[in-house]
């Protein structure tokens, strides 16, 4: 891969993506002469307004919803906090129960935990070994006072794609809860049609789909009752105040336009790369364990443990060869806690400690797959030659 001046293989597209040059080009005028506040009366400001509304159309088009169902926010974290807290406060007279799952992104889990401190009750659904929730367990947990169910479409670490269509049907049949899905990882890789999914609310952001950082969106079906998270000047139809981040929104719009055109083809390419990656790794490296489902996962996402090889060490060794990857190892985190997602799968700590996430995207090629596999062979061999754990993950005695 060669994006711009980045030499090496960027295989951490689930962390963030490079900005597509076409997106950058669309943004440029708004970082330069078109700097006006879109709330201004004069022509210069109206140009900004027009650009924002065009971007909204493009994002709505990608999600297959109405233009006025898109609220621009600052990030997926904000969209998720907005939905969760906003629903809780707006519907608290109706009920105080929320359902989510143990493998949600931290921004969902921590927002829920905070609400627990405010008198709300949250059910965190278990997942199976591959990361799937059980729709029937969900059904059992629904109550009369359940106001929100939030289940992500795909997991950012292990690529599990939840059965959202089925789940939304259950929730809408059995309760009056809103259904929210965090699908920050999906655009550009798989279908993101909120109508088909049947969700009421959905979170995305731009920087996981070759757009800029600093902008997210919330799909919010008409007439839902949700308090704003950011009160103020009444922008975004009163749903999210603050001067619009025009260049980022414009970039988001352009990124959505490209995704809408290209997702099928790109998804297919990513699936092929994934196929080759799995086969090559499993064909040449012993004692690996795939985390998450083997088939049907988020295209481009791979999470695999090389037993006996600690993840942070492997990431840094690969970095030395110009390859960017991630790990769920405790050693890589600020609190020395391993990934809550890998923990939720019920595998031992050694598995999390030796996990590696490789995530490809638009700008990767089949050559990148080869480069990664070759590097893995070398580094896994070297690190295993000095490890205190044998390849079954046990200490050598």
């Amino acid at each position, binding site marked *: 891969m060669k994006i711009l001046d980045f030499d090496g293989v960027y295989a951490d597209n689930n962390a963030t993506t490079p900005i597509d040059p076409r997106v950058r080009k669309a943004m440029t005028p708004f970082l330069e002469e078109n700097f006006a506040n879109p709330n201004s009366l004069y022509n210069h400001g109206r140009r900004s307004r027009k650009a924002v509304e065009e971007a909204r159309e493009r994002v709505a088009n990608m999600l297959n919803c109405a233009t006025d169902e898109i609220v621009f926010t600052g990030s997926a974290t904000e969209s998720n906090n907005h939905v969760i807290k906003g629903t809780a406060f707006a519907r608290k007279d109706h009920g105080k129960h929320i359902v989510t799952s143990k493998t949600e992104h931290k921004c969902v889990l921590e927002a829920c935990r905070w609400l627990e401190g405010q008198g709300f009750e949250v059910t965190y659904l278990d997942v199976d070994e591959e990361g799937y929730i059980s729709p029937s367990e969900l059904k059992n947990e629904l109550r009369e006072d359940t106001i929100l169910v939030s289940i992500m479409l795909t997991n950012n670490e292990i690529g599990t794609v939840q059965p959202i269509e089925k789940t939304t049907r259950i929730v809408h049949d059995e309760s009056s809860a809103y259904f929210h899905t965090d699908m920050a990882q999906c655009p550009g890789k798989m279908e993101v049609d909120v109508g088909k999914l049947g969700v009421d609310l959905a979170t995305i952001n731009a920087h996981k789909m070759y757009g800029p950082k600093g902008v997210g969106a919330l799909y919010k079906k008409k007439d839902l009752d949700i308090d704003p998270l950011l009160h103020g000047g009444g922008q975004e139809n009163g749903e999210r105040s603050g001067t619009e981040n025009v260049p980022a929104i414009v970039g988001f719009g352009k990124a959505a336009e490209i995704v809408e055109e290209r997702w099928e083809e790109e998804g297919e390419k990513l699936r092929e790369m994934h196929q080759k990656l799995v086969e090559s790794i499993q064909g040449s490296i012993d004692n690996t364990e795939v985390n998450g489902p083997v088939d049907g996962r988020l295209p481009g996402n791979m999470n695999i443990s090389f037993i006996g090889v600690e993840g*942070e060490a492997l990431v840094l060794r690969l970095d030395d060869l110009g390859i960017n990857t991630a790990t769920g190892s405790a050693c890589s985190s600020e609190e020395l806690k391993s990934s809550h997602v890998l923990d939720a799968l019920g595998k031992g*700590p050694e598995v999390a400690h030796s996990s590696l996430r490789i995530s490809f995207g638009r700008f990767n090629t089949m050559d990148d797959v080869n480069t990664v596999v070759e590097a893995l062979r070398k580094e896994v061999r070297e690190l295993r030659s*000095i490890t205190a754990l044998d390849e079954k993950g046990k200490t050598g005695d």
Partner: protein
Amino acid sequence: MYTKEVMEHFKNPKNMGDMENPDATSRVGNPACGDMMETYIKVGEKDGEKYIEDIKFKTFGCAAAIATSSVTTELAMGKTLEEAENIEEEDIARELGGLPKIKMHCSNLSANGLHEAIYRYKKEEGMDISEELKKKHTIAQKTLEKTEEVRKKHGLDED
């Protein structure tokens, strides 16, 4: 995050891997971060004093764990047992130009491993063991216990 010295040791670690017929071995581990180290020593004698003739580590762990293992072997190699017993985590961290605060436990661990190997050697040989070293032995055992706890909980020793 890491200093040049850490990265250098991490990329080209010294004295890592198996040792044939060690005079003593130890195993220490810290489940909080999943690090696990095995230390092997060969003890020689010169001028009536026992010294570390050879030392090797096997380390499952992050870059800091590998780098501290490596630098610990360099610090210990050729030292008398008494000198080696007194190699502390600060010495190791210093040698590496410092470690991220959160990673200090890694240097701790390689010192633990070294001390524990010496303890075992002395015990095997029936040598005098200082109070200091006994304390260090207890600490080393504790890190391991915690590891075993976690491993048991997850049924990892069962297959």
